[in-house]
């Protein structure tokens, strides 16, 4: 008698916003809204992912992302394990592939990976059997940040489409900006990138947004999204702005430059006095702590979705020839 086996469902990952559909985004945000109610309960833990294992593999420093992923997994009753590059076998020269294979041997359901090199999450997805969530790979993608930003905007403005976001600062080195612009387009909103031509070069218009080098362009925006100068991603001797002083004078977000009714987001960590004036950061227009809270529920929703929803969230891109 022959045994009939159903084919294994495709492994699902969250590697890039480019892999998502609008329906995926809306489902994830709705799930997050549903989970938000659980945060107000006295007992905050849900049994949903009991017996599942989530591994966090972090090769770059992180406060918000790692903390919220850990907490998100714990709130869903998953077992968690976090590995930071410093103090691990990575210090002894182990490659990302070998570290991923080692962790995969424990049979984790999800591997959340952050790494300074573009393509790191793709590599982990390629060499292990786990669902992989990209928690930031170099300048490429940070899809969970974009989703929590959309969640924050939807909570604040009551809708997701037709919103205009001005993204101000070091867009060139920002995975947050790349993911956010793609996500905004996906849900029918738009973005304008604002900054000096060295950090907002014309080829970034390929992301499907407009570009301005004049901060006055933020006047039309519903949301001002402020980015940090990512000096750790600039090569030695590379010059993008002559000085932070001049940058701040031209592009710093001060109270005078924010229109009443605009909301201000920042993915953190903030450099007060450089890209954002402390008076703005501490004002009611700034939704920075809302973003952090959104990060928890959105990451809970992502883990829940990857491990319980059968429809593919994302398929890695394929190579096309000729």
């Amino acid at each position, binding site marked *: 008698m022959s045994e009939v086996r159903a084919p294994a469902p495709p492994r699902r990952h969250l590697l890039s916003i480019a892999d998502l559909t609008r329906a995926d985004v809306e489902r994830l945000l709705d799930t997050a809204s549903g989970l938000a109610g659980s945060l107000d309960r006295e007992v905050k833990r849900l049994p949903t992912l009991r017996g599942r294992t989530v591994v966090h593999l972090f090769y770059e420093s992180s406060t918000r992302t790692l903390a919220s992923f850990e907490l998100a997994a714990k709130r869903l009753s998953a077992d968690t394990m976090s590995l930071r590059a410093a103090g691990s076998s990575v210090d002894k020269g182990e490659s990302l592939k070998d570290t991923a294979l080692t962790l995969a041997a424990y049979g984790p359901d999800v591997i959340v990976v952050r790494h300074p090199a573009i393509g790191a999450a793709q590599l982990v997805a390629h060499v292990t059997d786990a669902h992989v969530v990209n928690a930031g790979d170099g300048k*490429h993608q940070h899809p969970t940040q974009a989703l929590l930003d959309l969640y924050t905007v939807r909570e604040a403005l009551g809708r997701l489409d037709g919103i205009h976001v001005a993204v101000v600062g070091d867009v060139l080195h920002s995975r947050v900006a790349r993911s956010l612009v793609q996500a905004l387009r996906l849900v029918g909103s738009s973005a304008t990138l604002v900054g000096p031509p060295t950090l907002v070069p014309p080829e970034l218009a390929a992301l499907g947004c407009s570009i301005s080098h004049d901060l006055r362009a933020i006047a039309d925006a519903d949301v001002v999204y402020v980015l940090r100068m990512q000096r750790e991603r600039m090569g030695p001797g590379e010059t993008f702005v002559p000085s932070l002083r001049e940058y701040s004078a031209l592009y710093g977000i001060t109270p005078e430059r924010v229109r009443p009714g605009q909301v201000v987001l920042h993915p953190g960590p903030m450099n007060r006095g450089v890209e954002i004036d402390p008076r703005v950061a501490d004002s009611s227009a700034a939704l920075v702590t809302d973003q952090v809270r959104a990060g928890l529920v959105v990451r809970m929703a992502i883990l829940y979705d990857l491990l319980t929803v059968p429809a593919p969230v994302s398929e890695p891109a394929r190579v096309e020839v000729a």
Partner: protein
Amino acid sequence: MLVCRNGRADSLVLEGRALDPGRGIDACLRVVVEDGIVAALEPGSDARLVLAPAFVDPHVHLRTPGREDEETLLSGTSAAAAGGFCAILAMPNTEPVVDSAAVLGSLVERARDEALVPTGFLAAITKGQRGEELTEMAELAAAGALGFTDDGLPVAAAGVLRQALRYAGLTRLPLALHCEEPTLSRGGHAHEGPVSAELGLGAIPSLAESLMVRRDLALAGLEEYPVHLMHLSARESVEALEQALAEGVPATAEVTPHHLVLTDEAVRSLDPNLKMNPPLRSEDDREALRAALRSGTISCIATDHAPHARHEKDVPFEEAPFGVTGLETAFAALYTHLVVPGLLTLETLLERMSSGPARVFGLDEPRLEVGARANLVALDLEAEWTVTEDGFRSRSANSWLLGRRLRGRVVRTIADGREVFAE
């Protein structure tokens, strides 16, 4: 000077559709080889295979000396034999760099023991490929160098290249140039365009190549000395070359199979086997390269076969080294993606893989001619096959074609009168 290990010359008979565009041959023939020489071309009746002059690859990295874990003279020339090549030119960017007669001499000796297919060596233009002091070109030429190149790196200083063009006149050997303006390409991992912008990859603009192409052609024109432009990738470079040729500048150029087949859209997969330098560029660039290959502005196909150890490519895209292998897949890749869809004639492909590169480096053109040394390839154009990691004779498997299905297969290679590959 081409060298390979000694062996007896073979006597054999091949039959098929004989195609030698240079000799105007397209007929069903029996090619009789006696003691390594084409002894007779007789009418034949079996045209299942195509018989053509074997291929010449002007751009191969054999990684020897220094990285024999990635390729050896034996493994690299075995791969060449399987790819239908009867001659290959090895690049000098090894460890140590081939920048002295001593290093070159020992390499030539090793090739006499190991190389399955006749192999020529290019020597460096500057010591250590540092772009500063010229190598002892006369002595290197006497030791067998077939040309000079700092491939992998540009000769960044115009004044150094000018002196090299003058001094190389003592040798009459061409300079093969890797055209890249390093201050424009620094930190780059992919072509500057929508794909690199979306992926956040450091960008290498077309101008990084074409600016240097223009400079190098201007210097070649000034010194009236032949230059060979390696692995062109950008439309602007092709246009600069066309203009220079019209002005009488003595220049030739090559293009790789991957630049002829792929565009930077392929990079979206972030597969490290799609990372090469120069990078895959746009559809428009690819079209310009194909047109230049058809017209003969670009007269050579070069694989730029660049083996890398598996652990070096099993890393995130951004951390991976540039380069892909190509010796064993060049013909099939181009037959499948250019000839089958009607973008290039088979005759032109065969010419650009054989006579074209041979002429640039002053080698005897492989040919179907009574009395000539037998340098022949037999091709099965109907064969379909899948590129797999375990199918390579090369020590490395960093091919951009892994998992792909190809049409057309090399089934037999005769190099310098000896059968070096038979399926």
